């Protein structure tokens, strides 16, 4: 089978045959089980009863080469947290403009982070899950266009990605269900690799609108109190957002050091100014890679929005106003300790313990999980 494919591809090089639709099917799966260590603790969706579903997933990817530099890729994924309902995670057309330049169009992964493109493919990294403190923005895909350009600059491999698109979907805002629309998403990411290290930068911006029915009474009340300016400073109404990300990877063969930092803001809204980072260090003992990592989430609520009004507003408006703005405040530090064991060429066993300290509430939450990541 492999051989006949090879002969066909060898032939097509010499005889330009374009009528063959070459289809590749790949898949990946993660089966994970986890629990927190106490009834008062929850983390990453785990409670103190062992759960096999929360972080498990299955995905199939089909790529069809239509010839003449055009191909179609679709990935269907079922997540345990969503009852394994299969959904199109992404589906896009790829057109190769040149050997080093490609355009993808369709539903794409938004390239916020170093591991965005394969954050669900656990086999591709050592952790049991990507660092949630940094990867927890809440939406991962968009509909649009992306242009990839790869180049060899002296000793460096450069990958540049330009992006245009939009997003619409359901999110959670201040603990309430909401529908979000992000228009005019424009972004650029650039990754430079040389030998053992790589550096990545990302900048994305977009116009954010969020409709949360639960917040409507507050906004209506403030408008009726003659404060439409305050409402405008709070709500998400076509407000400019900005994402800046930096990442560095040092992989010397035995030691692996990975770090990412990001900074997020949505102007004229009660979205906190967010700064997140993690630092992860691992060591490969042949097929076993233990690692330790530290994550920090620092989301500063925009208290300045309500401060001028504390003496003016009646309590029935002031209290929910403060609650909504302060709900965005996050200050956590998380330690993770875990290992990856490559027990099979296509499967890795993982175990990870995570302990999160919430400085605002002085609470600790934790989760221990083990799992297997497979590619096929």
């Amino acid at each position, binding site marked *: 089978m*492999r051989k006949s494919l090879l002969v066909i591809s060898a032939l097509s*090089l010499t005889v330009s045959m374009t009528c063959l639709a070459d289809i*590749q099917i790949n898949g990946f799966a993660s089966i994970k089980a986890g629990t927190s260590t106490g009834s008062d603790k929850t983390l990453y969706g785990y409670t103190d009863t062992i759960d096999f579903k929360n972080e498990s997933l299955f995905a199939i990817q089909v790529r069809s080469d239509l010839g003449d530099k055009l191909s179609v890729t679709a990935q269907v994924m079922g997540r345990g947290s969503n009852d394994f309902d299969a959904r199109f995670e992404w589906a896009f057309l790829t057109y190769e403009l040149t050997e080093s330049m490609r355009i993808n169009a369709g539903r794409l992964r938004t390239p916020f982070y170093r591991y965005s493109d*394969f954050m669900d493919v656990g086999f591709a990294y050592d952790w049991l899950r990507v660092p949630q403190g940094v990867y927890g923005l809440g939406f991962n895909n968009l509909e649009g266009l992306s242009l*990839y350009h790869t180049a*060899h600059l002296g000793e460096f491999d450069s990958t540049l990605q330009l992006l245009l698109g939009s997003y619409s979907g359901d999110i959670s805002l201040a603990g309430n269900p909401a529908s979000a629309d992000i228009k005019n998403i424009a972004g650029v990411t650039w990754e430079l690799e040389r030998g053992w290290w790589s550096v990545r930068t990302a900048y994305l911006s977009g116009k954010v609108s969020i409709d949360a029915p639960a917040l409507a009474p507050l906004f209506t009340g403030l408008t009726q109190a003659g404060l439409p300016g305050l409402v405008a400073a709070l709500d998400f109404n076509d407000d400019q957002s900005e994402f800046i990300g930096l990442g560095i990877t040092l992989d010397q063969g035995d030691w692996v050091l990975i770090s990412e930092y990001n900074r997020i803001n949505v102007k004229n809204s009660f979205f906190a100014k967010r700064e997140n980072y993690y630092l992860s260090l691992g060591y490969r003992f042949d097929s076993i890679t233990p690692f330790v990592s530290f994550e920090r989430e620092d989301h500063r609520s925009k208290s300045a929005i309500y401060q001028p009004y504390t003496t003016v507003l009646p309590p029935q408006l002031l209290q929910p106003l403060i609650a909504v703005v302060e709900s965005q405040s996050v200050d956590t530090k998380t330690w993770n300790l875990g290992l990856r064991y490559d027990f099979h060429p296509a499967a890795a066993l993982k175990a990870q313990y995570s302990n999160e300290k919430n400085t605002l509430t002085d609470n600790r939450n934790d989760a221990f999980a083990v799992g297997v990541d497979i590619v096929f």
Partner: protein
Amino acid sequence: MNFRCISIMVASLALSASVLAESLAIVVHPANATDLTTEDVSRLYLGRARTFPNGESAVPINLAEGMLARESFDQRALSRSSAQLKAYWSKLVFTGKGTPPQEVDSHEEVLKLVATNPSIIGYVPASAADERVRIAIQLD
């Protein structure tokens, strides 16, 4: 499939002592006059380059996972363990950015394919290379 894997494993166990110590010959079609560095070979096998340094298109052929020459190639040419490479390729495959080189199950198959097409590049233990192919670089 299972039988084939077992026979490969048995064969590679028998060969282990000799093959690991031996150099690897990176082979191309005799009409392909290009000379390669280890870096060129690494870029082709990691999907970072798709042409030979002279601009002609290049199609790398790999040996199947588990074969000793493959392990030796992964270490010498790519400086990565097989597990690291598998993780590397899963990143590219699941983002639609690339597909790993096609794999074949024997040195003879590599030689046959290379001999039929000037675009194909492969590798075999140096002692297995014959007049059907040209050695573009030898990795000691």
